[in-house]
């Protein structure tokens, strides 16, 4: 049974082994369930493990493979779902005491699409409370640990998704991204994560943080794996009022087209200010690699980029509107830190919210102008590597500037992927951003860079 080397294989590789019958979905699922059982006491990636469901899904995939069904690349692939995605018959807590016993009667659209594609559901992955809080010690749901350094945060809010993928406990995961919650964990855990264009993937059945900033999307260990997941996820959902009718393209075939003649813009103002020296060095090296691969790389200016922190005004205001009733009636069911952060949204005036939306429109127009002159933007995902839990728990913690939030403001598709490691072994990451609905270009550039480097082949010692 060739499962030991399989836990870090790619989705394409696993599919090949299934078809050659050198590995079966049931064997692979059992191996992962054993691995989860062994690692969970340390890493806390899962809030619920659905072992029986996983084995039933795997047996169904095995039956389909036996009759020659190879129509879906996700057939028999074990995945984990962030616990803000509704799952029929399985508790969906949102990492919150408020919903600790909520059992949805329907799957979220994203979960339904992945399951329809033949995926194996391993369980639900821990999220920061309502995708915005931080699990302080004593929280009902313990915080996930970063497999690269257990003293450090895996990022959030899709913390369990990042941890599980880095530790070889799943082959793909669902994350959500309102200010960077897919790309942050991807950055800190040394994996890939894609925030698609706003409206590309459905939010139906996903707990809301901020209606106009929330994005759903895939996380995986490689860009290609993200592409496979996106192919199953993307597409119009009439139940989501923000869902786009833009046709879904092919995200797989263009991956191998390279980056020759692609024009890449680097907006250094804001995004490259205050960088950790190791992040800066890795980022410059990544730009050099992209040039060597044939892309033209040039600095660009986004005139209104300094207005980007206003995304937090929108996020806080909308989060307060969503949670206001529960906050007033059951404040004790919100964890400290989350409660105060959401309450802050109730202190923002209506005028300030509107002005933030005006700044957003300006920023979107400016980025649109830049993306008429270049095909892609490349930026460091986070100015610093993962912080320690001790630092973040300090009330005086000064969080680094968000390099991810501007792309929630503008809704543009943005991929995070590894570009190296710090001297202490912490993953470093860059973002690749494209025009609306040009995920194929973003994935193509990321895949080309990934194939020229070996960062994605390194795994933590767990």
């Amino acid at each position, binding site marked *: 049974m060739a499962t030991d080397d399989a836990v870090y294989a790619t989705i394409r590789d696993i599919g090949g082994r299934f078809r050659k019958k050198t590995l079966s979905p049931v064997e692979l699922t059992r191996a992962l369930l054993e691995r989860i059982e062994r690692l969970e006491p340390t890493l806390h990636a899962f809030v619920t493990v659905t072992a029986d469901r996983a084995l039933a899904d795997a047996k169904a995939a095995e039956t389909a493979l036996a009759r020659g069904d190879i129509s879906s690349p996700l057939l028999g692939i074990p995945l984990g779902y962030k616990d803000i995605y509704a799952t029929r018959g399985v508790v969906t807590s949102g990492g919150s005491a408020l919903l600790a016993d909520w059992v949805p009667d329907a799957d979220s659209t994203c979960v339904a699409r992945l399951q329809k594609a033949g995926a194996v559901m391993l369980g639900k992955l821990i999220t920061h409370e309502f995708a915005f809080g931080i699990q302080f010690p004593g929280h009902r749901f313990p915080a996930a640990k970063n497999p690269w350094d257990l003293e450090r945060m895996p990022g959030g809010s899709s913390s369990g998704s990042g941890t599980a993928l880095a530790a070889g406990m799943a082959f793909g995961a669902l994350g959500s991204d309102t200010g960077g919650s897919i790309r942050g964990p991807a950055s800190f855990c040394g994996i890939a994560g894609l925030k698609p*264009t*706003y*409206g590309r993937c459905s939010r139906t059945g996903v707990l809301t943080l901020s209606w*106009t900033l929330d994005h759903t999307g895939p996380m995986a260990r490689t860009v290609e794996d993200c592409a496979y997941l996106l192919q199953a996820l993307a597409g119009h959902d009439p139940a989501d009022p*923000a*869902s*786009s*009718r*833009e046709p879904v393209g092919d995200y797989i075939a263009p991956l191998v087209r390279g980056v020759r003649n692609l024009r890449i813009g680097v907006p250094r103002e804001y995004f490259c200010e205050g960088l950790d020296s190791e992040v800066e060095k890795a980022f410059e090296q990544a730009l050099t690699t992209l040039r060597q691969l044939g892309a033209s790389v040039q600095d660009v200016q986004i005139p209104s980029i*300094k*207005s*980007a*922190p*206003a*995304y*937090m*005004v929108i996020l*806080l205001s909308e989060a307060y509107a969503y949670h206001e009733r529960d906050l007033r009636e059951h404040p004790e069911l919100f964890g*400290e*830190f989350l409660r*105060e*952060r959401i*309450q*802050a949204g*109730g*202190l*923002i005036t209506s005028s*300030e919210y*509107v*002005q*933030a*939306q*005006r*700044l*957003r*429109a*300006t920023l*979107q*127009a400016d980025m*649109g102008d830049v993306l008429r002159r270049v095909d892609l933007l490349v930026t460091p995902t986070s100015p610093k590597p993962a912080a320690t839990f001790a630092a973040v728990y300090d*009330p*005086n913690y*000064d969080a680094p500037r968000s390099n991810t939030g501007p792309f929630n403001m503008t*809704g543009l598709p943005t991929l995070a992927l590894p570009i190296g490691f710090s001297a202490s072994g912490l993953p470093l990451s860059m973002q690749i951003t494209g*025009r*609306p*609905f040009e995920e194929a270009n973003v994935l193509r550039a990321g895949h080309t860079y990934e194939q020229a480097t070996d960062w994605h082949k390194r795994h933590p010692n767990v």
Partner: protein
Amino acid sequence: MTLDELRDRMKAARIEIAENRLELVRRLLTDALRPIHEMDSRKVKTLEPCVTFDARRSGV
């Protein structure tokens, strides 16, 4: 934003925040609101606070 300004906003909104968390909230709001306080809303191009994301007219 000063702590006094924060307390004024809390009073107006009838929201209570624990004393040991006020500084966290003050910093959060100060950073988020800075671009808004720095903008001259009369000079910003008239832009509706309405954002669409589809470049090809299909709407969202």
